[in-house]
């Protein structure tokens, strides 16, 4: 009984006279605060950058630095000419196939090397040697092997994603709790089941993190990949806008679009990751 009394007292304290009619109402204020924290604050950096950009553009010749409004108009122009969707789709198409190809080869390679100490000892130095070579260095080879065009661009994205994906898979295999492998051995699981029931589910969470990081890398390389004389895509847009008439507003429009789509890809992969992890 005493406790109840105490509670009631504290309730009374919260509703001190006058507080009910305070303006703006407490609920609305909290709501606005929450909104500002989840939307306004993250956007503030972008807003500041836009303002600085606008001021800089206004105080310099337009030929040197197109302002945000000009870039917005450029994006509108792309949309009006039907190029916006076309280029975005073209870029995503190349990245998707290049990346899926890498995934298809890298995961089995990573599992094989992660499972076999000898395999790892034999191939790890090679992987480490290849790792510091920028994917861009492969451009001449890509052209030599696949000519100029889509396949070369996809190959470049493949090359950029393959190594980090292989290494991420290897690491995930190394991090499997040995107790789980021992248990599976104890129950004499046939190899197919061992793969499906133990190995793949065990590496999945780490593998998904690897996928998220390497999707970012693959998207990063799209500009370079589309420098190889393809005639569509956001990377092509950037090169083409400069070559054909110094349209720097279109150059920056391409950059902005790449950034936006990169964020979307990251969010998408995160969603998939959470869905699978749950």
């Amino acid at each position, binding site marked *: 009984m005493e406790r109840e009394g105490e509670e009631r007292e504290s309730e009374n304290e919260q509703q001190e006279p006058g507080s009910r009619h305070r303006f703006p109402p407490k609920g609305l204020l909290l709501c606005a605060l929450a909104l500002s924290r989840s939307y306004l604050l993250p956007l503030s950096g972008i807003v500041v950058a836009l303002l600085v950009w606008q001021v800089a553009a206004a105080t310099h010749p337009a030929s040197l630095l197109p302002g945000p409004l000009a870039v917005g108009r450029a994006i509108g122009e792309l949309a009006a000419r039907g190029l916006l969707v076309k280029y975005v789709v073209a870029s995503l198409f190349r990245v998707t196939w290049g990346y899926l190809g890498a995934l298809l080869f890298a995961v089995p390679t990573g599992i094989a090397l992660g499972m076999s100490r000898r395999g790892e000892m034999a191939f790890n130095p090679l992987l480490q040697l290849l790792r510091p070579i920028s994917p861009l260095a492969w451009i001449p080879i890509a052209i030599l092997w696949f000519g100029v065009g889509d396949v070369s661009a996809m190959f470049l994205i493949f090359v950029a994603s393959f190594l980090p994906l292989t290494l991420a898979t290897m690491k995930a295999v190394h991090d499997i*709790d040995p*107790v*789980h492998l*021992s*248990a599976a*051995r*104890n*129950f*004499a*699981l*046939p190899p197919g*089941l061992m793969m499906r*029931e*133990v190995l793949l*589910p*065990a590496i*999945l969470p780490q593998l998904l993190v690897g996928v998220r990081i390497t999707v970012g890398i693959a998207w990063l390389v799209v500009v370079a990949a589309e420098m190889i004389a393809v005639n569509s895509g956001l990377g092509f847009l950037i090169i083409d806008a400069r070559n054909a008439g110094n349209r720097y507003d279109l150059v920056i429009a391409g950059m902005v679009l790449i950034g936006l789509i990169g964020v979307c890809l990251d969010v998408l992969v995160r969603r998939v990751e959470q869905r699978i992890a749950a």
Partner: protein
Amino acid sequence: MKVRFHDVSMRFGDVEVLDAINLDVSEGEFVCILGPSGCGKSTLLNIASGFLEPAAGEIAIDGVRVVGPDRRRIFVFQERGIFPWLTVEGNIGFGLFDLPESERRARIAHYVQLVGLRGFERAYPRELSGGMKQRVEVARALAVNPDVLYLDEPFGALDSITRLQMRSELLRIWQAERKTILFVTHDIEESVQLADRVVVLTARPGRVRRVVPIDIAHPRDLSSVRYLALRDEIFGEIGLAHKI
């Protein structure tokens, strides 16, 4: 004779871990292997289960030399041995991949019931307490109907109340299923509560210091004179005065 250790020795590099262990375990017997940490008792269990190869000597089960792990003899790790990506059902049925679905279902249901996890069939390990996870692992081991169970400090990570409960659960299950059990522990009380015989090992390199038969019928009264006498005898054997 079910399990026969014959002059089993083990070394890791220059470190001698086990020195000529000889031990016979009969069918259906519950044997505790007791020793200070680092005495090689876990290593001994890993050799018995075929996960490790001894440096010398051999282990024979039903007269056949052990050369590797076998699903007739299941190793129970501490609770972390169950698969976090499988449900309770999935874990318990893990070793039953070669059974027809209906029999698989029936076995899973039987062992879910036996270890008292009815209602948690669809739960994932992360939703379970430590004791429940350990039950899942014991059920997973029993479900394949092995003839020997190896338990490596299975209750070591549990709190003391849960540990006591799990011991009586294990005894109940053992009495129902009559498996041969080799149970490694560093807990003297635990060994006297559970075992038919306690094998006391020396510090490294582990040798069999003494084998103490526990001649008390189950359920054991933990305040009986005989229990206390056996417990103190083992305390003495290990060289600990039973005082703090």
